[in-house]
């Protein structure tokens, strides 16, 4: 699925329940021209900037990281994390490429439970 078709589907799903999710109204709230949003949805324009994608994600209650990935971008905060230790993170990501979700979740920092 492309970036455009994904956001069109998400918007139309919400439009089915709430008429304020028309192209025009969503574009207004996101701060772009309705014609531009319409072109993005039909894949006639490339995905917008990170900031606009974040606003679209918020408006449609979608995950911004997922939309950024679909647009071929890596969010600015992730870039900064990787650039702070590029070799280490490049190696880590390659190592985890084929790991199952559950294994990846195991390396997330957990809140430690002690004795109480």
């Amino acid at each position: 699925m492309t970036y455009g078709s994904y956001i069109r589907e998400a918007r139309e799903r919400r439009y089915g329940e709430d008429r304020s999710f028309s192209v025009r109204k969503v574009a207004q709230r996101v701060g772009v021209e309705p014609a531009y949003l319409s072109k993005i949805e039909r894949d006639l324009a490339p995905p917008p900037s990170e900031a606009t994608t974040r606003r679209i994600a918020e408006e449609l209650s979608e995950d911004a990281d997922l939309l950024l990935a679909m647009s071929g971008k890596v969010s600015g905060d992730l870039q900064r994390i990787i650039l702070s230790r590029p070799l280490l993170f490049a190696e880590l990501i390659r190592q985890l490429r084929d790991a199952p979700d559950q294994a990846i979740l195991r390396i997330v920092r957990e809140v430690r439970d002690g004795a109480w």
Partner: protein
Amino acid sequence: MIELRDNELVFRFPEVHRDAVLSVNFQRTLRIPDDGTAHFLPPGLGSFPLHHVDDYRETTPSKWAVHGGVFFPMHQSEATWLDFEGDYPMAVKVGAGKINAVTGRQWRNRLAKLQDYLVTPDQPWLDGFNVRKGMIRQFVAMPLGEGYTAEEQLTGKAEHGGIQLAVYPMKASLYEEMINRRGSICEEAGYPIMASYSQATQEMGLAPGGLMRQEIYEDHYGIDTWETEAFSRCFVHILNSVAFFNVTGQSPPLRPPTAWEYTKAGLPWFDYFDAELTALEGAKELARLESVEVMEGRRGGLPMPTIREALVRRIGRDRVREGAF
């Protein structure tokens, strides 16, 4: 496993089911007066900042390292409510100073047959101690050691403080059955900051505040629904706001407005009602507790101004309870 993400505790049980996720955050809110009236639900004014205890071992009380968990700052007499988010049904035990907030009994890790837990997502929020059917007394932060907290009133000791959570997911087989039946559930103040502090008063506990209308709902699934072998628990410490700056170097959130200021500004209060669910009876032990305001009154404190909520929004599931002050 529990992850700290954007000031939320995210409880995940991937070994039970991939959908078994519950987020819990601690909302800043107004403190309501104990003026003999049952008040409506106050707004959420944003979540308190949460930190790993392990990141501040040098500057937090040594026993916190033993407890593990997280901490957040509260001003003295500030109130909080717990916000639960997640569609996967969970049984959630909540303790304050290791006193069960539903039953008033001492903390136990296991679920009791006489319901001592909440069920989410039926129960979207918890604002206080379950004192009567349909009524709670608001969670208000007070220094541990001064006799106000529920823990001290019930046990005579100022030992634990903070908030304790234990979360039990629904058994995966029952969840799958439920999804198949439904299609997919997924589709469907101005109080003074302490001028000085000591080691003893850095730690805060929760004391009972004013009366509020909130139902704690009965578990309509039954106790055998819950995966009791796969529970997660977390000790959430509360640090006095002044001490928080000294411990972390970060400023705590600003003091919230008073309930009187908020109401005078014409901002909304909230009322949550779910006709399909039955409310639990209140806990006798908790009904006996004295509120902070009554105790302060005996110590020469002035009563809070009485309020009358003019604007009340009646809300149901999926509605946001947010203030705009």
